[in-house]
């Protein structure tokens, strides 16, 4: 067995084998980075957040409120030089989430609320700034919404 992996006297691996091993490891490391990076793309985060907000709105009741941690979206919008006050827009029974000028994601909700939204910033216990989206389901809309 030892003979099989011995290239020269006194060395287990030759430089060719080392290049082969490092090259293979590098390729698989890059693949792992690619898969990890793919899950962090803007359009995936936008879709996830739009659906999450729409689900909560559909379950809400009049007079209640909801608070979402949108720090990640805010950070991405800032990084992409996108208007940070418009990264989450709730309008015409759609939740629109957009963190870049390229394209955003919308997801519909079916409840008939007049939704007031506000962005607030708080410092968490680790001293890090967190950005929250606060939704208030304060009053009902009268009849069927237009648009």
């Amino acid at each position, binding site marked *: 067995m030892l003979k099989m992996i011995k290239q020269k006297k006194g060395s287990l691996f030759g430089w060719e084998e080392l290049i*082969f091993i490092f090259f293979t490891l590098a390729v698989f490391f890059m*693949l792992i980075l690619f898969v990890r990076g793919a899950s962090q793309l803007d359009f995936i985060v936008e879709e996830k957040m739009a659906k999450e907000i729409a689900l909560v709105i559909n379950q809400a009741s009049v007079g209640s409120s909801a608070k979402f941690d949108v720090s990640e979206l805010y950070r991405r919008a800032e990084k992409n030089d996108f208007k940070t006050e418009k990264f989450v827009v709730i309008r015409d029974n759609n939740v629109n989430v957009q963190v870049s000028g390229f394209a955003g994601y919308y997801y519909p909700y079916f409840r008939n609320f007049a939704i007031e939204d506000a962005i607030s910033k708080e410092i968490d216990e680790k001293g890090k700034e967190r950005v929250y989206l606060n939704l208030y389901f304060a009053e009902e809309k009268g009849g069927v919404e237009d648009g």
Partner: protein
Amino acid sequence: MGRKLFFNMGKGGKLMTIWWFVCLILVIAGVVLATNIFYSQGPDVRGIEAQNIGKLVLSCYGDYDGAFESFDFFSECNINQTIFENGNYFLKLSLLDSSDGESKVLNEIRFGNYALENDCLVGEKTLGRNFPKCSRSEFVVDRGKLGLSESIEILAGVNSKGGRIKN
């Protein structure tokens, strides 16, 4: 040197042959393709939405003080009728009689896109992504205002799809 490195690794045997590169490219292509397919689907929340509609109806119907057949899901549960009837949502309420141990349907009311009812039946037996996700549940609703309990079956179907915002 290059030829030796890539096609013949000396006495130890051939490691970095053209076939090894072909295998590597196939593995890379497979991973990239699988990743793209997986993430292009997005999280599917239609099943959760269907369950949530069921819970919502249960809550609204419990507070409702009228007859079953005149229950208006849209006004009682604060639902936007235009959105619900745009083709992506369906709700069927069945009033059941379980007095003799066997459930019999006494009355039924439907809301939304009626075509989704059949799609729900097909979707339960197939894995097609374009079929709606449905939730079927049976409850005994305690209607406090009327002082009676009713057994109802709720079938909710959702085929709502979001999309990319076009700039």
